[in-house]
């Protein structure tokens, strides 16, 4: 769906704290354009904090975030999305009081090209037929899987070039999880979208990722090929839980 292919994302020594508590203690990682990087780790490892800092919801203490070589650390979230990086928040962050159609339209509202907004909207409906059948329903009436589709579809309507996905499998049946993972892989392959995928469900994330990063207590403890991460018993037992 992205029209101009993906952009690269480079994170260097990112530090974020909430008051006295440090959530990220100098995280560095590199996501090449058109690839999927999975960020794994236990609860509280700093995965969501990483995404929230990247998309501008939280201001970093220090460090650098380069989107296609351009510094964006500390930029406001409404600017970051307009620079081509969309964040699908944890917990299927749809706006429950709005209809499916309103939620989807909202994703592309900042874009000037009105004709393409409509095209992107219809593409999202084509990608997620269950949403197409429920256009006028309130988002609060959707099932968990449908909400995840809505959140993902809403991000895609913005035609992002980098997608930050926070725990898309949370609370979903394995079958739906694997459908969503397969879709992410397909988007990446067909359109060159760059994806940073945060997951607790390490096994399914590693199955589609090109690269894996393991976070613990706000630092990167491993960064490697998915197959090698999955084969490392110590790592699996200590951080990945499978």
């Amino acid at each position: 769906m992205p029209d101009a292919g993906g952009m690269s994302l480079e994170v260097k020594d990112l530090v974020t704290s909430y008051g006295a508590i440090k959530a990220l203690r100098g995280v560095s990682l590199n996501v090449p354009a058109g690839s999927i990087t999975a960020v794994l780790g236990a609860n509280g490892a700093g995965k969501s904090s990483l995404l929230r800092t990247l998309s501008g919801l939280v201001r970093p203490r220090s460090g650098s975030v380069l989107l296609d070589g351009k510094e964006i650390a500390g930029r406001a979230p409404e600017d970051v999305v307009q620079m081509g990086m969309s964040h699908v928040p944890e917990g299927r962050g749809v706006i429950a009081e709005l209809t499916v159609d309103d939620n989807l339209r909202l994703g592309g509202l900042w874009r000037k090209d009105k004709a393409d907004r409509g095209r992107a909207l219809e593409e999202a409906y084509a990608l997620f037929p269950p949403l197409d059948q429920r256009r006028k329903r309130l988002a609060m009436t959707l099932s968990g899987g449908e909400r995840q589709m809505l959140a993902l579809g809403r991000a895609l309507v913005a035609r992002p070039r980098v997608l930050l996905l926070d725990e898309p499998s949370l609370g979903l049946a394995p079958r739906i999880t694997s459908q969503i993972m397969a879709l992410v892989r397909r988007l990446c392959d067909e359109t060159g979208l760059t994806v940073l995928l945060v997951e607790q469900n390490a096994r399914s994330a590693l199955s589609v990722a090109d690269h894996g990063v393991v976070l613990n207590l706000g630092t990167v403890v491993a960064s490697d090929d998915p197959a090698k991460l999955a084969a490392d018993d110590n790592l699996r037992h200590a951080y990945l839980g499978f």
Partner: protein
Amino acid sequence: MSRFLSVTLSGLAGGMIYAAVALSLVLIWRATRVLNFAQGAMAMFTTYLAYYVLDHDGSYWLAFAVALLSGLLLGAFVERVLVRPVESGPHLNAVVVTLGIFIFLQGLAGLLFGGRFRSFPTTFSNKNYNVGDVSTLSPFEIFVISSVGLVAVLLFALFQYTDVGLRMRAAAFEGEIARMLGVRVGQMLTLGWALAAVAGSLAGILVAPSVFLHPNNMDGVFVFGFTAAVIGGLDSPVGAIIGGLGIGVLLSYVASYAGGDLQTLAALGVLVFILMVKPSGLFSSTATRRV
């Protein structure tokens, strides 16, 4: 029976004014979870500005436009400059700030325009049309009902059918998610307050002919509007309008059958009753509310 009918009808006309106040409170509450205690005083102040225009030989319609436009600007200013810094803090701080604006505007109006009661003219007659032996509505009351109705419909259309309305709703419901979708939430909240203040100013200029213009004249109207908003659940625009009409009719009965001095206490009774019995209001969409 004919008296009952005409009391009911004039209650509906008055109720539209309370509905406008309630609507402004609801729009602000929905957007920022702040109850704007200054809304009555803001409307009072913009009505004084309209009075100033009339007093200097402006037309009624110019004065009308001045009231609404100054309401728009005042609402935007209050949100952006005074309320924004306390919006995310403890709710008591925002309450105190709006109370400060309330009393400041009362003082400013008294200082600039004096404490005398002034009669406020309209271009419409106050003489009721008679249908059979029932005295119905006056042309002014019809103007009240239709202008509040028109503003309500325009606001509804703006929120429901335009892109900016969608942005405003998103900003009000889920500010953080809206920001992640590129919505300038701060601007939307300012705009929300500005539009809400227009509804308040409309109420001010419409109520002025019947309560006279005075720095305190909107205190009671604010209480009625607040009661109407609470009846409606404080976050339902439709509920605010129905609540306004209901409280208007009730107060009209109280005024004609018990005494006008008891109107505010009657509203207090309704308010306490609703908050005790059904704190989420009669029309709220959200299930629970902590009052």
